[in-house]
C-alpha cells in the first residue's frame, strides 16, 4: 500500500501491516491483528529495520479530496477560524486545508476504524457521533449545504461572503442555531473544529502546522522528547526552538 521509504531509507513494512489491519476490519471478517504470530521460548520477536515510521503526505499544494468549490470553502473557513494576524500565520498559511484534505482522503475520512453499522438514530448528545456519514461524506454533504444556505440568503457561496458574515455563519453553526439541509450541522462543526486544531498543531509531517507555525505561536517545543534538564528551571522560558519528527528546516540541506 505504501512502500515509500522512512526517514532513513528503511521500508515501512510495519505501517503497511497496520493499514491492512484497518482494511480487514472493514471487510468485517479478519480479526484485529493480521501479523498473527506464535511466539515463545526464544525471546521477544523484535526484528531490526521494521520500525513503524509515520506516513506523511506529499506536501505539494494540490487537493486530493476537495473539489474546487469545497476547497474554496475550506480555505475561507480556515482563514477565519485561525486568522493570520500580527502574531503570525493563520490556519490557511499553515496548510490546514491541505492537512484536512489528506485526512479526508485517507483512513480518517473513511471512518476506517469507526463502528459504522446500523441502525442509525440521532441519539442524545451524551451518546456521541451517530451519523451514517463517514467524516469525508459528512464534509461533502455539509459544505454543499453551507453554500446552498448562503446562496439562498445572500446569493453567494460562503467563500464570497465578507469576513464578518463568515464569522457570523460559523458562530451559528457552533451554537446550533444554523441548521443545514441533510446533515447534522453541529456534529459537523465539531469535526471541522477538531480537524482545524489538528491541522494547526499536529506534527508538520501531516501537511499542516507548516514551518511549525502553530507550535511557535504558543511556545510548544514539538518532538524534543528530553526535558530532564529543564524540569526544575522554575519560571524560565524553554530555550530551544521547536523540532518536528522530521527535524527542522534549518537542519536539512534544502
Amino acid at each position, binding site marked *: 500500500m505504501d512502500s515509500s521509504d522512512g526517514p532513513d531509507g528503511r521500508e515501512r513494512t510495519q505501517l503497511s501491516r497496520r493499514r491492512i489491519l484497518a482494511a480487514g476490519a472493514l471487510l468485517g*471478517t479478519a480479526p484485529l491483528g493480521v501479523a498473527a504470530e506464535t511466539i515463545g*521460548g526464544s525471546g521477544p520477536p523484535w526484528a531490526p529495520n521494521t520500525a513503524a515510521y509515520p506516513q506523511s503526505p506529499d506536501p505539494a499544494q494540490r487537493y486530493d479530496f476537495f473539489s474546487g468549490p469545497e476547497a474554496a470553502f475550506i480555505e475561507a473557513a480556515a482563514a477565519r477560524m485561525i486568522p493570520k494576524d500580527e502574531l503570525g500565520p493563520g490556519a490557511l498559511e499553515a496548510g490546514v486545508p491541505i492537512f484536512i484534505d489528506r485526512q479526508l482522503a485517507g483512513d480518517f475520512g473513511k471512518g476506517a476504524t469507526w463502528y459504522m453499522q446500523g441502525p442509525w438514530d440521532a441519539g442524545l448528545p451524551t451518546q456521541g457521533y451517530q451519523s451514517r456519514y463517514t467524516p469525508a461524506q459528512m464534509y461533502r454533504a455539509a459544505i454543499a449545504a453551507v453554500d446552498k444556505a448562503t446562496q439562498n440568503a445572500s446569493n453567494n457561496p460562503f467563500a464570497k461572503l465578507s469576513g464578518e458574515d463568515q464569522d457570523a455563519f460559523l458562530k451559528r453553526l457552533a451554537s446550533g442555531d444554523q441548521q443545514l439541509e441533510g446533515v447534522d450541522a453541529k456534529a459537523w462543526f465539531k469535526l471541522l473544529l477538531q480537524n482545524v486544531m489538528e491541522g494547526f498543531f499536529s506534527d508538520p509531517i501531516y501537511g499542516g502546522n507548516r514551518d511549525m507555525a502553530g507550535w511557535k505561536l504558543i511556545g510548544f517545543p514539538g518532538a524534543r522528547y528530553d526535558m530532564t534538564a529543564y524540569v526544575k528551571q522554575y519560571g524560565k522560558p524553554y530555550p530551544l526552538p521547536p523540532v518536528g519528527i522530521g527535524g527542522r528546516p534549518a537542519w536539512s540541506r534544502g
Partner: protein
Amino acid sequence: MAGAHPKVDVLIVGFGWTGAIMAQELTDAGLNVLAVERGDWMDTATDFSTTFAQDELRYYWRKELFQKPAHETLTVRNNATQTALPMRSLGSFLPGVGVGGAGLHWNGQVWRFLPSDFTARSHNLERYGKTAVPDDMTIQDWGITYPELEPYYDKFEYLCGVSGKAGNLSGAVQQGGDPFEGPRSREYPNPPLDMPYAPMLFAQAAASLGHHPFPHPAANMSRAYTNPLGVQLGPCTYCGFCEKYGCGNYAKSSAQTTILPVLMRKPNFTLKTGCEALKLNLAADGKTVSSVTLIDADGQTYDQPADLVILSAYILHNVRLLLLSGVGKAYDPNTGEGVIGKNYAYQITSSVGFTFEDKILNPFMGAGALGMMMNDFNGDNFDHSGLGFIGGGYIGVLQTGARPIETFYNPNDLTTWGGDWKKKVARDYLKTFSVATHGAVMSHKGNYLDLDPTYRDVFGRPLMRMTFDYTDNEHKMSDYLTDRALEVAKAMNPRDITPRYRKGSWDVVPYQTTHNTGGAIMGTDPKSSALNRYLQMWDVANLFVMGSTAFPQNAGYNPTGTVAALAYHAADAIKSQYLKAPGQPLVQA
C-alpha cells in the same frame, strides 16, 4: 481438528497487564502456559521509538494503539428508558489492543486503595448509620482486606520500579509522603521524580491551607532501575507524551518493559497474537470450562482445551465473554438477582483551570504520573457527617504534558477559535494549568452491563450494552472535591480561575478515564458476587477472572495497583492451594 490443538495446562485470554503477570507467575510454577492476544506484537523500538513516539495526531487523535470500534465496541445509554447506541468512535475511555494491553499506553499512576475502601459497605454503615447507604446503592465489601493485599501491592510496585515517597511505613507516618495511606512494609523502590513548577506551586498552596501534598507514585522511572526479574528500565525524560502513548525510553513500566524480556524466553510459554477468544465452553456438568473457542488471523476457528483458564481481556471484554458464553447468571436490574454485569462503576473527574499573569510553567514537559497530590478528601479520610454523600477522591496537579490539540480542542466547547482565541492562547499557553480531581463512583442498582438487543460486532454477535450515569452521590462528592480544588487554586493567586464542575449525565464523548470497573465482582457470597476472594468463579472452579472486573465499586484512585495486587494474590493461591486440588473451589460457598 482434534489433536491439532493439544490441551494446555493454562490458557490465558488477553495479554495485557494481568495476562503477563499471570503468565509469568504460572510458568514459574512449571505449568505449560498458552496466552492468546487479539492484537499485534508491539515493542518499543518498532512501534513507538523516540524518533516518532511523540506524535499527537497519530497516537491520540487517530488512536493507533487503542481498540478499533469497527471490530468491537459497545452501546451506551444513561438509563434504561433510553435506547443504547454504539460508541462509534472512542471517547470517554480507550481500551487497549495488542501485547501489553492498555498498560502499554497508561500513565503509570500506581495507587493502593485505602484500607477502608475494601469494606466500603460495612465501614460506612458503622460510621454514619443506616442512611449512609441508600437502598439502590449496591456497594459491597470486597471479601479481602488491605493487610492481606499489602505484600502483593509491594510486589507490583517493585516489579514496576515505582518512583515515590512512602507516607506510612508499618504504621509510622513519614514526612513528605501521604500520611493517609495504608501502612506499607517498605519504601518505594525509587525516589520521586523531579517536580516541575506547577505541582510545586500547588503543593505550597495546599500546605498553606493545612492539607498534606506529596509526590504522586509513578511508574515513570526517576532513575535507571533493574527490577526483581532482572529487567532494566531507563530514566524518564519528562517527554510529555506519556498517557495514551507508548514510551520510547523504556522508562514507563508495562508488560514489555518489566516482564516480557524474561517470559518470552521460557520454553513453557507460548503467545499467539492475532488470535481472539470468541467463547468459553463449559463442560457437560457446567462446573468447569473445558475449552475456549478461538479464531485465528486467517479466520480459522477452533476449540483450545485447557485445565485452567485465566480471563484477562480487560473488564469490558471479560464481562462480555462471560455473557456471550452463558457462564454465570446474568444480572437483572429489576430483581437485583444474578451477578454477571452487576455493579458496573467508573470514575468521576473535574478540574479547576488557572492562569498566571507572569509565571511560566512550561506545561508541555511532563510524565504520566508526575505531580503533587493530596488525599485529605479521598475515601473516608474526612468526616462525611451531614455532607450527603460517601466516598471521595484525590486532588492535585498532574503534569502529564500539555499537548496542544488536546489542550485546545474540547468537543463540548465550540467557541475556541477566531482572532481573539488565537491571541489568548498565544499569551496564556505557557502560564496555564489545572488542578484535577479524581473521584470514586459507588455502585448503583441501575448501573450495569448486559448484551445489546440490536447492535452486532464483526462476527455478528451482540455488542455489550452499558447503562450508566452518575447519581446524586457522585455529583455531590465531585462538587465537594471541586470546591476544595478551587480553594487551593485561589491560594495560588493566579490571574484567572476556571472551575469545571462535572455537570449532568455521563457523556461518552470527551476522554475521562479508562477506569471501568465491576461486572463480575468479588465477594463473600455467590448470590451477590461472581468471584471469590481469589478471583475464582464461584460456580466454575477452573476459571479465574482478572482485572477491575472484580471491584464491587470504584475507589477514588486509579485501579491498576489494586488490579495487579489481586492478580498476584490469585496467582499465589493457584500455586499454593489450587494446584494441589485442581478443579476445586478455594472457598466453600
